[in-house]
């Protein structure tokens, strides 16, 4: 904890705020996963954590370590970028699978499977 004491107080507040924000976002995302009824709604909830939550956390990290160490600590940005690229993969696959199931089961009110391939 010693290193953190060297942080200026304005920055400490900012970093703490961002980190807390991130935690709240991730938590509410998880809560949503638990509370929402329909599958498609539930699929959306955790993305809150992986997008906005991660963005806040990365901001906090960049700010904190840029001040503590010399120069701009941008390495953490890489985490954000990679998560941004990879997170949709999981979401897409899960939703696609659910869609396919509903499609086959003939559940009403389901969007068409794939417009391009229907021809």
């Amino acid at each position: 904890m010693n290193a953190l004491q060297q942080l200026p107080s304005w920055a400490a507040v900012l970093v703490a705020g961002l980190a807390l924000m991130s935690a709240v976002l991730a938590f509410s995302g998880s809560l949503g996963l638990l509370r929402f009824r329909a599958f498609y709604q539930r699929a959306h909830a955790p993305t809150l954590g992986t997008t906005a939550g991660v963005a806040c956390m990365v901001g906090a990290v960049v700010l904190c370590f840029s001040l503590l160490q010399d120069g701009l600590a941008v390495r953490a940005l890489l985490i954000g970028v990679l998560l941004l690229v990879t997170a949709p993969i999981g979401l897409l696959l899960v939703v696609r699978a659910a869609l396919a199931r509903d499609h086959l089961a003939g559940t009403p009110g389901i969007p068409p499977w794939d417009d391009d391939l229907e021809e």
Partner: protein
Amino acid sequence: MDWSHAPAVWLILLPFVASGLAAIWPRRWHPGYVMTGTGALGLAVLGWWAPGLLDGEVVRWQHAWMPALGLDFSLYIDGLAALFALLVFGIGILVAIYARYYMPAHYPLKRFYTLMLAFMGAMLGIVMAGNVIQLVFFWELTSLVSFLLIGYWHQGESARDAARTALIVTGGGGLCLLGGALLLGHIVGSYDLGAILASGDTIRNSPLYEVTLVLILLGALSKSAQFPFHFWLPQAMSAPTPVSAYLHSATMVKAGVFLLLRFWPVLAGTDAWFWGVGTAGLVSLLLGAWIATFQQDLKAILAYSTISHLGLIMMMVGFGSTLGVVAALFHVINHATFKASLFMAAGAIDHEAGTRDLRRLGGLRRLMPITATLALISGAAMAGVPLLNGFLSKEMFFAVTLGSDYGTWVDTGVVLFAVLAAGLSVAYSLRLLVGTFFGPVSLDSPRSPGEPPRWMRVPIALLSLLCLLVGILPARVVGPVLHAAAAAVLGAELPVYSLQLWHGFTWPLVMSIAAFASGCVFYVVTRSYLAEREATAWIAPVSARRVFEWVMVMLTETLPRWQQAVFPARHLQVQLRVLFGMAAGVAALVLVQFAWQVPAPGRIDVGLAVLWLVGSGCAIGAARQAKFHRMTALMLSGGAGLAVAITFVWLSAPDLAATQLLVESVTTVLLLLGLRWLPKRIPGLVRSSPRTRRRRLGDFLIASVAGGGMGMLAYLAMLHPLPDAVSRFFIENALPGGGGRNVVNVILVDFRSFDTLGEITVLAIVALSIYGVLRRFRPANESLGTPHLRLQAKGGDPAMRPAHPGATLPGFMAVPARLVLLVSPFALLFAVHLLVRGHNLPGGGFVAGLAVTLVLIVLCMARGVRWVEARVRVAPLRWIAFGWLLALATGTGAMLLGRPFLTSWHGSGTLPVLGTWHFASALFFDLGVFAVVVGVATLILIALAHQSVRAPIGVVRHDDTEPT
């Protein structure tokens, strides 16, 4: 005497190097030249040493091999070893020349000569061994090469059977010999031959003497095809004739004799020795001669005659008298010359006439006069005709039997049996020679015979000439060699013997005449009877071969069936229950001691506790769902794995955490691939009956006890105060000694790199085995069908149909596939990063390899195996080979610089752009680990992934209609 020692190691290496050379010999030249040249070089070295060896000097060479175990690689060449080496090289040259013309050019000649040279090396290894363990090693090597050579025509079932029999018998004998050698080492306190030979009284007076003797005898008798192990030799005649001439008459079968002579100074002279060796020899002598008389196949006659002659040699060794040793050595030389020559002559006849059957041969004297003359000389030597070498050693044999003093009836019996066996050998020699070369010309042979090529006759001629020379001028020709060999065995107490043709009218001469006369009479009387005879009289029903086969059937069929009947094990669960029950029992015995002193846990970390609650919940859930919801179970076990990974992070072990994470991912994917082929749940099959519930309760108890026990064990181990263990050394020496700050990695690639080398070797073997198993694997019929989701879509939705088997669904993967492509270069870069920084920061070859694998897996999932294989050149076997060889080369590199195997070097330097660069040679080792891991994981992945691409044998894939 240093001048003579250095070449010893080259002499033993020479045949092995030549063997490798023969394997890659250019097609333009005949590989036979390699063997001829090797033999000639070997003879030259022996000639160079000859003056010293004949004076009784011993050439020794030693290299510390495993000094901690008292094992040195040492060579010990005295007169005895030199005599056998002379046979190995001399007969080797002649056989090489002979085989050059005997073996047709379209046969796999390189394999033949490679194996023959390997045998030459192995046999030399036996005779030159200066360490008994080393001797056993080469002993088993000759068995192995002999197995491969007997099975040279492996397309034939008889050759395969014969090879297997020979391997089982001689290999088993070798194991006994190993036991004997270990006991010798235990008694003497050293495995060094010199030390063992110097402590004869210690060994003979040891309470372990009898056991040692029996074990060594089992080795010697099985190798020399002595009763009751004689049956493998006649079967081994399905090998090509040059092999029979070289291995199975002149050299390898004499290894048993060599062994007994080698240990003669320390083992012989007791009653046990006389009864053991002498009886086996006598029985083999009579039995071999008797059976040989009834054979119709030339090679079979020669094989049984070999058994008989080896029995004669054994018997002389068994007498324990010094004259017996001299006679045995003399007969070893003589038998090698005339028998090898006869085998080659038999091969020449087979080559020309196309048959070896006595009933279809005859009158060859007129068609191949030169071969006939040569064979007659060697055959007469076998029968013991005067003026030939066989006569002299047989006379010496008679003299030895006359010198027997083990009580009246034994002595009389021995003399009588000796004459009887000699008479039989005259009879079968006559049958062989007269039946083949005399009488009317047979028109029955498949080919019209003529003289074989000149160079095929030259080796036979040389050996026959030797028979004559030794027979007429024995003292001049073999006197010094025999003297040196006998002196090596007997030391100073050489008996009085004279190598002369004429000793005057003595008892041995009378016995010779009696044997000769009785043999001739026997032949004349039984001639027409034997010509028709198929089986051996009197003993045919009791064949040792049949006993052996019965034992084999017993061991491989009857016993296992009985065991299966007694312990029914149709269900894996039964075996697992027994296994875990036993483990739990043993563990309980140990744990009970600690039960009263379980230390209470200290401070509980709430975060970690919650994490572990989640992890345990996942694990229990996985176990609960494992039976009917495999997918769920798999996901839950993944959750448990993640909990473990987070624990590692929590406890500041990022290395382990990264590895765990990657292993978890790879395992989950591989298991998912396997899930597809597990049988489906049959609805309504399982009803919950009281019996089922009872069984489940039992299973639950076993699981709880096993899991709880393991947990308890871990808990105790962790709370146990650590002794001042080696870990402190690792932590303190990682940077100064290994040049790395990442202690885990330094341990893996430096301190414990030998272990790591072994581990990656095992890994590679496992991967190859998995590939080998899966290559032929076809899914069970019930899981063949298309997955039910796809089946529902059939006919309805074209989008739910993949373009071809193994491809991903078109709509599904479009976006993820592109995203994966986008990320994979970065992931690969990250893997390289992990590899390079591994020595100082979390990372290393293992993790890096897993990372690369994960990229490939994700690509396979997103785009399909076919797509990946078409675009990424994955050659897992090359990766494995490259990695393993690199790791090995890193280790050997240290040896080249005069350091022990796998010593690492580190230092730092300045590189242009990159700045200061700290470098450790262990990086290369780590690179090897990396490559092996990549290769292994990819190989398994491909093997699994191909399952879905491949159609089962004989079943047309009907469910995936081709899109038109």
